[in-house]
Each structure stands twice: as structure tokens, then as C-alpha cells.
């Protein structure tokens, strides 16, 4: 176990630095050790099974987006990982500590932000952080400097002596994020960190999360806003009906779900001929007829290879005089992935 120490915020971690930092998530080596892991985790509330045999793997240094519809079991999983709830069966490990056997060791290495603010309105901003620092046994002498560093990091340095209830929603959320950092944890577990925030505050929180990941923290956060996840995550786990339906690095998931590139070819006529012509182009794996749309014929073409294959398709159709109107590549965004793997099951 590492010794308890005061947070070590690098000089670069100032508000100024953040506001100009492009969102570039860290690169996580493929062989990185797992810092959060669950094995066969199950949680039942009476007859209802909230989590069913869940096995999660979060590599060290990752920004792991835990995505799923409401009621999928995200919060239950997080409450088990943060030692707030006992699982019905299975094991959960954080930084090598089993959450039910060594909850105190787990609490030392995690920073938890629930899906609500959890702030004391009758306190000043610095008092709020000082209180939680004291709760984490941070010596009194180290607190003032650490609080200044954290407030700068979340761009609240100028609000240090204000009462917490005077802060905006976004500011409160940033203050909560600063609170999770007072004891310099290895893992941040954030439940819906961007929910209820305006677009600007959401971007600010996202930037902060990436900044923290670049400082070496592992971030495990839940969200149902796919755009947030897609932009900053290195890894993703999709949960539905209490079960992980898919997890891995972002690239891996996209590759697994969309092994081939796809284009939709729209034609005025001669769809059958187009199908056979396209099937003969080198690199094309599959050609499927699609239903007509507004009187136009459509064909879906799956292919392997680069843009040359697409160019060859256009040439082949033109040389046969097939009236093609356009050719559109299907985007492989997270939303498509999500819709493909989930079925809309809610526990």
C-alpha cells in the first residue's frame, strides 16, 4: 500500500493550462495492468437482479466510459466499487484490494463523485475542501497549499472565500471533482459527471477529466451521453440489464462491431446489374440490396481496404453506364455501436 500523501498537482495543471488544452485522451498500453476489476459480480434487491455476473476490466491510466441506459446497473456497480454497498456474490478489486475485505484501503485509492452534488451549502469553498482533506487525514499544514492548487486546477481559485451555495451548477460540479482529488487517489469513480450541466460546463468537465487522466489518474465514469464518451474515452464498457454486453478499447470495439467499411450506393435504375458489377470489384466483401427510398434504388456494399476500392466502385458503375446518384460511407460512431449491441433491456 502506498503511503497517504498530499495531492501532487503538477505546475501545468492550472486553470489557464486547461482552458487551452486540446482534448487528447492519454494513450493506454495494451498490456496495462487492470486497476479496477470485477469477477462475476452480482447484486440482487429481493427478486430484482440489478447486476448479473458482471465482469469489468479497467486498465490503469484509462478513461473508461461505463455506458448504458438508465436502470442498467451502472450506479449499483459504482456503489459496490466505492465500498458503499456489498455485492450479493462475486468479487470486485480496486488497485488490487478486494472491496469487501479491505474497504479502508480501497477508500484510500479512490475518489468518488456521485451523480448529485453533495455539497454543504453553509460552508465556504475552501472550508469544503479543508473538511474533506481532514476526513482523509491530510495533515493541517499541508492543506492550504493543496487547496489552492486544487482550486486553481478546477478554475475556482477566485471563488475560494465564497459560500458554496453561491456557486453555479457547473462550478459546484468542478468543486466536487476537486474534492475527489484531495487525497491524491489513483482512481476516480465518477457517476454521471456531466449530467444536468449546460453545454459549456460539460465541455469544462470533459477537459478536466482528460487533464486528470494525463496526470496519471485512471478515470472510471458512467454516462448516458454518448458524445461525451466518444470524445474522451480510451475504453468503454456497455452495460445493459445488469450485464456487460461489450467492453474494450474504443478502437477494438469499433473494429469488432464494424470489421468492414460500408457504403450505401444510390441509383436511379439497374440495381440488379449494379449489384453484380460491385460484387466483382476487388476488395468488396458483400453487396446487399436495400429497400427503395423515395423511388431510388439503394445497395449496401461492405468492403475491405482504403479509398481506392471506393474509387474503383465508382469507375466500374460508370463504365457500365449504370446511373449512380451518390455513394455515402456509413459512419461508425458510438451511437451506431451502442444501438447495435443494446436491445433496450432495463432491469
Amino acid at each position, binding site marked *: 500500500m502506498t503511503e497517504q500523501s498530499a495531492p501532487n498537482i503538477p505546475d501545468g495543471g492550472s486553470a489557464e493550462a486547461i482552458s487551452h488544452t486540446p482534448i487528447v485522451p492519454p494513450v493506454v498500453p495494451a498490456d496495462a495492468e487492470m486497476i479496477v476489476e470485477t469477477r462475476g459480480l452480482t447484486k440482487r434487491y429481493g427478486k430484482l437482479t440489478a447486476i448479473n455476473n458482471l465482469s469489468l476490466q479497467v486498465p490503469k491510466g484509462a478513461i473508461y466510459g461505463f455506458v448504458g441506459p438508465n436502470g442498467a446497473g451502472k450506479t449499483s456497480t459504482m*456503489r459496490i466499487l*466505492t*465500498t*458503499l*454497498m*456489498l455485492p450479493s456474490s462475486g468479487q470486485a478489486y480496486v488497485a488490487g484490494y478486494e472491496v*469487501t475485505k479491505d*474497504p*479502508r484501503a480501497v*477508500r*484510500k485509492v*479512490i475518489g*468518488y463523485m*456521485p451523480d*448529485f*452534488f*453533495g*455539497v*454543504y451549502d*453553509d*460552508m465556504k469553498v475552501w*472550508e469544503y475542501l479543508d*473538511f*474533506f482533506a*481532514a*476526513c*482523509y*487525514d491530510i*495533515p*493541517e*499544514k499541508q492543506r492550504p497549499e493543496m487547496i489552492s492548487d486544487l482550486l486553481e486546477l478546477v478554475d475556482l481559485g477566485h471563488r475560494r472565500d465564497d459560500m458554496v451555495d453561491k456557486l453555479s451548477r457547473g462550478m459546484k460540479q468542478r468543486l466536487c471533482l476537486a*474534492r475527489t482529488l484531495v*487525497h491524491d487517489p489513483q482512481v476516480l469513480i465518477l457517476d454521471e459527471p456531466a449530467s444536468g450541466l449546460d453545454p459549456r460546463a460539460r465541455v469544462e468537465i470533459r477537459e478536466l477529466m482528460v487533464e486528470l487522466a494525463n496526470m496519471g489518474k485512471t478515470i472510471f465514469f458512467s454516462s448516458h451521453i454518448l458524445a461525451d464518451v466518444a470524445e474522451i474515452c480510451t475504453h468503454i464498457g456497455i452495460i445493459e440489464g445488469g450485464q456487460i454486453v461489450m467492453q474494450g478499447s474504443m478502437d477494438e470495439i469499433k473494429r469488432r462491431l464494424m470489421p468492414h467499411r460500408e457504403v450505401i450506393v444510390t441509383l436511379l435504375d439497374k440495381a440488379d446489374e449494379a449489384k453484380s458489377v460491385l460484387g466483382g470489384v476487388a476488395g468488396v466483401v458483400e453487396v446487399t440490396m436495400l429497400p427503395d427510398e423515395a423511388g431510388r434504388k439503394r445497395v449496401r456494399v461492405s468492403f475491405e481496404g482504403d479509398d481506392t476500392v471506393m474509387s474503383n466502385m465508382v469507375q466500374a458503375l460508370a463504365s457500365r453506364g449504370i446511373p449512380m446518384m451518390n455513394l455515402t460511407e456509413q459512419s461508425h460512431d458510438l451511437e451506431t455501436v451502442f444501438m447495435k449491441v443494446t436491445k433496450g433491456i432495463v432491469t
Partner: protein
Amino acid sequence: MTAGLSRAERRLRRQNPVAVKELRGRMRGARAFIVLTVYLFLMSGFMLLLYMLSTASQDIYGFTSGGQVGRTLFAGIVAVELFLVTFIAPAFTAGAISGERERQTYDLLRTTLLPARKLVVGKLVSALAYVFLLLLAAIPLQSIAFLFGGVTEAELILAFVILGVTAIVLGAVGVFFSARLPRTLAANVTTYAVTLGITIVLPLVVFIVFAIVNSTIGLRGIPADVQAALLYGLLILVATNPLATAFATQYWLLNKQSAFLFTETVTGSDGVIMQVTLISPWVLFTVFYLIVAAVLVFQTVRRVRKIEG
């Protein structure tokens, strides 16, 4: 155990962040001092009223007994303070833990390294600190009674002990229900029900039993040892609530000049005269309620420590 710790670490162990936070919040701004000032102002007014009422009553020679005035003032102030403690101690503690749940800060505290013991004790100590501040602030007012005579330092100290123990046990009851019940409202209702039981119902029971026992003692046909047993029983019953304890303690203090042990004489049906050694009720009351408070705090800590299943 703490030999290997540095000074800073030992200091950290002694500190209670919850108590610091609560006291900081309670004493912030002018509110706390305004409350204190208004409280003392009202108490002074009440004392003045009591003074005027007691001086108005004269004895058959047209004199007013200074000792009587002093005792009336003292008893009046103690009664108001008991009323105050009865209402304030539960009010400050019944929302202690449930309020954290409602404010959604409970989970945050549970994921820190703050031991459950520090959370519970911090809440209780900070609430009691303010109650004790009110009690201490009224001591100069109580001491005015000395100018008239009829009140001893022992009475002042014992009244403070009884009020203090009452505050501690009612505070512990509040914290206990606050941890047990999910909502502050439910915790408040239950705590006040228990408080009323201790401060109103029990004294009534004591009064009725006392009337019965008093008429029984000295009656012919009842053996001395039965009368002695009845006296012990009455003493235990008296010690179950602050009001009866305060009255009985003062009664025996005045009549037996003892704040600890004294003897009562009972005469049995067979003419046997028996000396019964009794202990002053405040001692029993203090020991009993401090044990109750300790058990409640212990149970509350266990409850807070428990991880949701």
C-alpha cells in the same frame, strides 16, 4: 500504540473534522450570538418576574424570606434550562445523520477515511457544545440567587450535572434515531416522543408511585424490610428522569445535608426501627444515563459503520 506517531499525526488523531465543521457553521456570523443574547435577555426577564412575585409574598410578620426568594429564583432558572435542554438537544442531533443522507453528503463521508466513531461523536459533541454554552452562559444569572441566600454551591453544581447529563442522553437519543431512521422528520418525531417520555411521563409515574409509597411508609402492618425495599424502588424510579431527580436531590440535600449517602429511618409493623442507607438520586441518574448514552452512541457507530447489504 501511539508511541511511533509524530506530533502532527497525534494531533490529527485527536482532531474531529466533523465537530470543527459543525461548530464553524453554527457559530458563523452574528446568528449564534444574537440567539445567545436573546436567550439571556429572556432569562433575565423571567428572573425579574420571579423576583417580583417572590418578594410580593410576605410572611405573617410582613417580611420576605431572602432564602425563599433565592431558592425560587434558582429553581425557576433550572426549570427553564431543563425545558431548554429538553427541546434543544434533540433538535440539534435528530437530524445529524439523516440530514447528511438528505443533503446527499452521507455517501461522500462514507467513502472517506473518516471513522464512523468520529462522525457520530463529532455530531454529538458539536450539538452538545452549544447546549453547554447556553447552560454556562446562564450560570451568572443562577448565581444571583446566592445574594439572597438559601442556595448552596452544591446545588448549583448538582443542577449543572443533572442538566448536562440530560443534554448528553437526549443528544445521544437524537443521534441514535437519526442514524436508524431514513428521514429527519421521522427521527425528530421519535426522538421527541422518547424525550417527552423521559421528561413528562416518567415524572408523572414517579409522582403517583411516590404518593402511594409515601402513604404506605409508616403504616402499621407493613414490615420494615418491605418499606425499605419500597424506598429503594422509589429511589430507582426517581433516578429515571431529570425532573424527579432534581427535586429529590434538592429535598435530601436540604433535609439530610448530604449530596451522596444518607439514611432514612423506617418503623415496621412489629415496632422494628430500621436505618436504610440511600444514595442521592443524582448519582444513580448520572451513572444510569451515561451508560444509556454510551450504549446509544456505540449502537449508532455500529449502524453508521455498517455497509449497505
